[in-house]
């Protein structure tokens, strides 16, 4: 799937929703719980099942990255299925908290 920043995607197997923050230049296979993520407005055929062995699902407000693909997602709804790109698990972007400047 070709991704662009600001694109909304949702899981076929759980409640998870994400937005693309940084998009890879090449096509990638982006999945949640083992099933391909769906574009906004796209519905699954109902046959996909959640593969729980892939790990925990995304948490609301956390950013998930894969440095190899140059991908960053923001979780806008939490879910049960783990996020993967080309079979690799996405990792939470750990950021040192900044002092509140506003």
């Amino acid at each position, binding site marked *: 799937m070709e991704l662009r920043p600001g694109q909304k995607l949702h899981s076929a197997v759980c409640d998870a929703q994400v937005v693309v923050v940084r998009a890879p230049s090449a096509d990638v296979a982006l999945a949640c719980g083992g099933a391909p993520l769906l574009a906004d407005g796209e519905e699954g055929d109902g046959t996909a099942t959640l593969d729980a062995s892939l790990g925990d699902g995304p948490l609301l407000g956390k950013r998930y990255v894969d440095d190899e693909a140059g991908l960053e997602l923001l979780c806008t709804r939490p879910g049960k299925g783990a996020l993967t790109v080309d079979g690799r698990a996405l990792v939470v972007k750990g950021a040192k908290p900044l*002092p509140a400047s*506003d």
Partner: protein
Amino acid sequence: MNLLLLLDMVAAGRGDEVAVQAGEDRLTAAELLAAAWAGADLIGGASALAYVGTNGLAFPIGLFAAAAAGVPFVPLNYRLSDEQLHDLLAPLGDTLVVAEGDAAALAARGHRVIAAEDFVAAARTGGAGDVPADGEGEAVLLYTSGTTAAPKAAVLRHRHLAAYVVETVEFAGAGPDEAVLVSVPPYHVAGLANLLSNLYAGRRVVYLSQFDADAWVAAVRREGITNAMVVPTMLARICDALEAGGDDLPTLRALSYGGARTPATVLERAMRLLPDAAFTNAYGLTETSSTIAVLGPDDHRAARDGDPVATARLGSAGRVLPGVEVEVRDPLGAPLPEGEPGEIWVRGEQVSGEYAGRDAPLDASGWFPTRDRGWLDADGYLFIEGRSDDTIIRGGENIAPAEIEEVLLRHPGIAQCAVVGVPDDEWGQRIAAVVVPRPGVSLDAAEVQDFARRSLRGSKTPEIVSFVDALPFTETGKLLRRVVQADLLPS
């Protein structure tokens, strides 16, 4: 990414907590989102939503209603005359104007106007819709303060503001008891950033309709305020109020300041009066979606403990935020080594640099010239000398007014001062100091010059010294140097 999506996340995660409050009026994040959709219906087919008013619930509802309608939100200075407001509104086309107070004059000029209280009441009936994700649209048009030129509208797209928030604020990172007091004006980028950052952090946003030091202190105590952001002129008045009233502010944990250069004397006094608060200096511009560098609480504490390096850095804007790059360049655009002053250029996802109806001043690689002068130290601390336009060039030597002002403010008899260049046939410019003496103090020019000469070279000692009762500042603490300069010139 769209700003409405950020609100939608807060509504999903912490939707039942109070998100925004003005007086006794409160909205949860879920209610604010519903109000945004109802507000979008009121906008109808207009191409922009303008807001003319003080801080209140109409500001957050208006911002997100505009996002829901897919049109820009345009907060305007409510102190402008009807004539000035009309001039700023005219190029926007068909605009719905949400206005506090008497809006008859604007309506008479053909603008579609709704009273702020009616807008809020109608929006509170609530609505719903599909939250957009796209970040390309114009989120906010903000008129820059125009201290050196006519005002122009900076265009901040959703993706600029969302990048700033997502990159710098931890979602729902605030504790349940945290509350921020917002007293900066709604037509300033700080008012916008205050709302977005604190909402995303899950911190209750409490509005003060407009700044007044006694009301600010009272609100901090009444509302259990933990966080606040103020401009330097506000900070000085808060210090006066705290000293006069003898109040402490036990709930205030974090106080950030910015918007203009803060005199060292003001900061030192504030740190003495609020020993338990964590201080943060924020530097940014309208065109960069607010903050691009911060000097954090650890740096302030180290300075308070007497560390000489940290003390020198109290005069800096701190380090650049993640996601933002800074270069100091010479007039030909070549990068300068650390320690050497030049023009500050910035680049990053939050940097817009776009003005309505004009070509963007970004260079081919996306760098934006801030028109601020400054330099970086060995550890990446950014020192701001002031606006490039304000630099005094005397006999070929570049002189930053701030350096001389900081020295003069150490004089016990000087309350405020402004240093500007005045045209001179021999030197190009000569240095003039305009001084506000403290009440009851009598000063003469020779004494001010002697005091300056003790810390500065002769070439930096003001050649002209005049005395005034007050200096002209904008509401956000920026000195109107061109007014000071004009007053010095023979009419």
